[in-house]
C-alpha cells in the first residue's frame, strides 16, 4: 500500500509533461514547408559540399522483397528507387498541369501518336559492368505483365501492346490508343537487369528465397552492401552510376524499427537521422530541438466520411449534404492534426491542377442541417433520435480498427451527429474486412481515406462501372460518368479543367463523400543532413544529393 502512495506522489510531482501551450523554444527547429514539395533549404556554403559520412534511416517494416515486381509495400518501393531508377522521374509540379518529367535512365524521348521513342542514356551501365540495354526494358515489361509474377501494378502497362527494340539504346513503346498519360505509363515500371533476373524463370519467381543476393546488380546511385534480415541493410555507392558527382553520402543504413513510437524516440536520441510520417502531436517535441529540421508538404491524400448512396437514408443527396453540414470538420482538423491538415471540399486534392479551388467546404451549420432533415420529413422521436415513417435515423459507421485518428474522428462525428438527432453507431473493422464489405456494398457509412495518383482519374472511385470495385459509395450519376469518361482522356488542359470543374460542382452538391481533411506529410531530418528536399512523388528522390559536411561526418 505504501508503495502505491509513493508512486502516486512521484507521478503528481512530475508535473504535466507536454501539457498545453508548449512553446517552440527560441532557437528551436526550423520548419521547411511547401505544397507539393518542401522549399529548397540551402543553409550551406556550396564550398562545403562533401562526400562521405553515414546516414541512418528507419523503415517501419522490412523490405518484403528485393525484387521490385514481387514487392507490394510502399516503403520497399522507396528503397528500390535508390537501386533501380525509373526511366523518367515525375516532378512534383502538378498544380498547374499534369506533372513534367525529368530524365533518369532515359535521357531523350519523343511521343509520336501511339508510339513513344525512348533513348537510354549512353553511360547507363549495370553495376557489374554490363551496359543497360533495351533488352532489359523489354524483359522488365514482360515481367510486369507476366501472370505468374502477378504484379499488382501491372495495369499500368495495359495500354502498352509491345516493346520494340530498335537497338541497344533505343526502343519504341507501342500503345493501343492515344491518351494524355502515355508518358506517365511509360515510366512507372522499374528496369531490371535481364541477364541476372532472367536466369530464373517467371514461374519460379514467387518462391525464390534469395532475391537480396541478386540485388547487388543495380543501375542506380546505391547498391546493397549487406542485409541482415528484419534488422537492417546497408547501401553503398554504386561506382558505375552515371553521375560521377553522386551519391554523396557513402553509407546509407536502413534500420527496421517496427513501431512509429520507437522511431520517434530514436530520432530524438540520435539513433536515426531522419523520419517520415511524424505524428502531428509530436511536432511540438521536434520544434523544441534546434538540431532537427521539419519538412512538411501537402500529402497526396484526403480523409473522408463515405455514404452508401444505395442506402434508403443516404439515397437523397440533400440528406448527405446535411451530414456534411452537421459535422464540425474544423474541430477535427484542429484537435487531431494540430494545424497539420486543412479542410477540403473535393476528391481532387487542392494541390492538383484540376482542383476547383473556388469551391469552399460547406460550413459547419447544425441549424441548416436540422432544417434540411426536417424538410425531408424527419421528426424528433421520444429519445431524441430522428424518425421517419416509423424508422429511426440510425446506421453503422465503420472504420479501420487500430487507426487512432480515424477512431477519434468517428467519436467526434458521432457526437456531432447526435446533436441533430442522428444516431451513428461506430463499428471498427479490420481493413481487409472493411474493403471487402465496401466492395460488396454492405456498409452504410464509413470513415476512410484515399491516396491519390498524379493522374486525375476519378473513374475507379466514382464511375458507376466501378460499383463492386473501388466505387465504395455506389454513386451512379450518368452525367458524372460522362464527365469522367471524357475528362480522363482529354488532352487539352483547359478543356479538361472545365470538365473536372463541372465534376466537382456536381460532387459538391451531391456529397457522396463528406471530405473531412487533407493532411500534411510531416517529416523530420537531422540538421546535419544538408540539401534535403522532400516531395510528394518520391520522398527520397534527391537523397543522392544529400550530403553531410566534413566536420559532422560519422
Amino acid at each position, binding site marked *: *500500500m505504501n*508503495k502505491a502512495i509513493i*508512486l502516486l506522489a*512521484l*507521478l503528481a510531482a*512530475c508535473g504535466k*509533461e507536454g501539457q498545453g501551450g508548449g512553446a517552440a523554444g527560441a532557437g528551436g527547429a526550423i520548419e521547411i514547408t511547401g505544397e507539393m514539395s518542401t522549399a529548397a533549404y540551402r543553409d550551406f556554403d556550396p564550398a562545403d559540399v562533401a562526400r562521405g559520412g553515414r546516414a*541512418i534511416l*528507419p523503415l517501419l*517494416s*522490412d523490405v*518484403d*522483397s528485393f525484387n521490385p515486381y*514481387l*514487392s*507490394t*509495400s*510502399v516503403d520497399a518501393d522507396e528503397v528500390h528507387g535508390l537501386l533501380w531508377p525509373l526511366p523518367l522521374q515525375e516532378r512534383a509540379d502538378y498544380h498547374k498541369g499534369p506533372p513534367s518529367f525529368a530524365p533518369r535512365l532515359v535521357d531523350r524521348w519523343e511521343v509520336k501518336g501511339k508510339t513513344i521513342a525512348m533513348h537510354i542514356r549512353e553511360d547507363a551501365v549495370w553495376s557489374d559492368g554490363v551496359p543497360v540495354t533495351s533488352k532489359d526494358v523489354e524483359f522488365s515489361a514482360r515481367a510486369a505483365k507476366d*501472370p*505468374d*509474377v*502477378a*504484379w*499488382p*501494378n*501491372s*495495369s*499500368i502497362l495495359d495500354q502498352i501492346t509491345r516493346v520494340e527494340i530498335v537497338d541497344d539504346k533505343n526502343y519504341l513503346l507501342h500503345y493501343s490508343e492515344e491518351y494524355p498519360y502515355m508518358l506517365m505509363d511509360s515510366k*512507372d515500371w522499374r528496369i531490371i537487369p535481364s541477364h541476372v533476373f532472367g536466369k530464373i524463370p517467371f514461374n519460379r519467381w*514467387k518462391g525464390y*528465397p534469395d532475391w537480396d543476393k541478386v540485388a547487388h546488380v543495380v543501375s542506380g546511385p546505391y547498391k546493397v552492401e549487406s542485409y541482415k*534480415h*528484419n534488422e537492417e541493410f546497408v547501401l553503398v555507392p554504386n561506382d558505375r552510376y552515371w553521375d560521377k558527382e553522386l551519391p554523396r553520402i557513402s553509407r546509407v543504413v536502413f*534500420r527496421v*524499427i*517496427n*513501431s512509429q*513510437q*520507437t522511431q520517434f*524516440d*530514436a530520432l530524438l*536520441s540520435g*539513433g*536515426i537521422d531522419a523520419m517520415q510520417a511524424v505524428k502531428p502531436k509530436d511536432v511540438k517535441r521536434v520544434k523544441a530541438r534546434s538540431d532537427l529540421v521539419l519538412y512538411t508538404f501537402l500529402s497526396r491524400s484526403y480523409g473522408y466520411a463515405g455514404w452508401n448512396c444505395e442506402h434508403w437514408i443516404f439515397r437523397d443527396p440533400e440528406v448527405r449534404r446535411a451530414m456534411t453540414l452537421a459535422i464540425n470538420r474544423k474541430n477535427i482538423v484542429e484537435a487531431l492534426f494540430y494545424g497539420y491538415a486543412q479542410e477540403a471540399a473535393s476528391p481532387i486534392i487542392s494541390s492538383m491542377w484540376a482542383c476547383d479551388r473556388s469551391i469552399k467546404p460547406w460550413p459547419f451549420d447544425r441549424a441548416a442541417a436540422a432544417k434540411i432533415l426536417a424538410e425531408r420529413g424527419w421528426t424528433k422521436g421520444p429519445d431524441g433520435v430522428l424518425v421517419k415513417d416509423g424508422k429511426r435515423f440510425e446506421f453503422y459507421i465503420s472504420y479501420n480498427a*487500430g487507426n487512432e485518428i480515424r477512431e477519434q474522428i468517428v467519436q467526434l462525428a458521432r457526437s456531432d451527429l447526435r446533436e441533430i438527432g442522428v444516431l451513428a453507431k461506430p463499428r471498427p473493422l*479490420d*481493413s*481487409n*474486412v472493411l*474493403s*471487402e*464489405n465496401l466492395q460488396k456494398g454492405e456498409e452504410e457509412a464509413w470513415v476512410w481515406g*484515399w*491516396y*491519390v*495518383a498524379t493522374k486525375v482519374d476519378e473513374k*475507379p472511385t466514382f464511375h458507376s462501372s*466501378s460499383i463492386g*470495385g*473501388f466505387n465504395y459509395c455506389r454513386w451512379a450519376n450518368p452525367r458524372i460518368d460522362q464527365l469522367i469518361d471524357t475528362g480522363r482522356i482529354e488532352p487539352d488542359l483547359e478543356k479538361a479543367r472545365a470538365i473536372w470543374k463541372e465534376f466537382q460542382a456536381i460532387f459538391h452538391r451531391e456529397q457522396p463523400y463528406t471530405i473531412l481533411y487533407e493532411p500534411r506529410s510531416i517529416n523530420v531530418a537531422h540538421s546535419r543532413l544538408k540539401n534535403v528536399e522532400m516531395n510528394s512523388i518520391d520522398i527520397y528522390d534527391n537523397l543522392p544529393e544529400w550530403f553531410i559536411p566534413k566536420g559532422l561526418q560519422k
Partner: protein
Amino acid sequence: MFAFVVRRLAWGVFIVFGVVTLTFVAVESVPGNPFSGLQSPKMTKEAIDRYKASWGYGPDKTGWDRYKIYMEYLAKGDLGRSVAQNRAVSSMLRDAIPNTLKLTIAALLLDLVLGVLLGVISALRQHTRTDNVLTGVSLFLYSMPGFWLSLMLALVFAVKLGWLPRYGIHSPEETGLLDYLQHLILPCVALGVAAAASTARFQRSALLEVIRMDYIRTARAKGLSERTVVWKHAMRNALLPTITLLGLYLPFLFSGAIITESIFGWPGMGQMTIKAITDRDVHVVTAVTIVGTTMVLIGSLVADILYAVVDPRVRLS
C-alpha cells in the same frame, strides 16, 4: 511408463491435427483476407485479383483447396508462407521465437525465484506482520490486469523517470549486453512479478500444508534444528507441487505474453500472433497454434511424468 509416454504422444499428434484443422477453419470462415496492404492508387481491381489468385485466393479456389495445399506443405515439413509479409513462416518463427524465449525465460526465472522465496518466507512467518504484508502485496499484484501493470511500469520508469527504454529489444545502435538488459527489465518484471504473486500464494499454502504433517512434528520432536527441519525435510516436499507445475509453463514460454509484448514493442511470438490474426494470414496463425499446442501437450506430459517420478504414490494410467 514408456507405454504411457507413447500413448500420450500419439494422442498429442491427434490433438495437434484437430487443433490445426479447427484453426484453419476458423481463420478461413471469418470474413477478410490477407491483402489489406495493397493500398497504392496505381493498383486496379483486376491487377489485385490476379495477385490474389497467384497466392491461391482466386475465385475458383476455396478454403478447402487451400487447406489441402497447406497439408501438403506440412507433410513436407514446411510451415507455409505468409502472404502479408511475403516470406516463409519458418523464417518468421526463427526470428520471433528466440526473442520470445529471451523474455519468457527471464520472466520465469524471476517468477520462480521471487515467488518461492516470498511464499516460503510468508509461510514460515505465518500470522506475523511480514506474512500479512507479503500476502497483501501478492494479492494486490495478483489482482492487477497484466496490461495495466505493464503500462504503469512503462509510465514510471520509461516515460516519467527515463531510466529505462520504453520499447523494443535493443536500441537502434545495438550497443551490447547492458543495452539489451535495460530493454529486458521492464517487460520481464511486468510478466514475472504478477506470476510470482500467484506462485507465492501457491507455494505458501503448499508449505503450510507440509509443515502440519506428522513427519515434520516427528523431526522436530527428534530435536533437529528448525533450519534442518525446514530446509531438509519440509522444503523438499513443499517444492514438489511448484516443480511439477513447471511443465505447464512450457506453452507460455513459447507463445509469449501477447499483451506485454505488444505494449513494449517486443518483436516476439505475441506480436506476430496478433498481426497474423488481424491480417488473416492463415499459415502464420496455424503455425503459431501448432507451436502453442505442442508446447501445451509436451508441458503437461512433462508435468505428469515429474509428478509420478517424484511422488511414488502416483500411478500413471
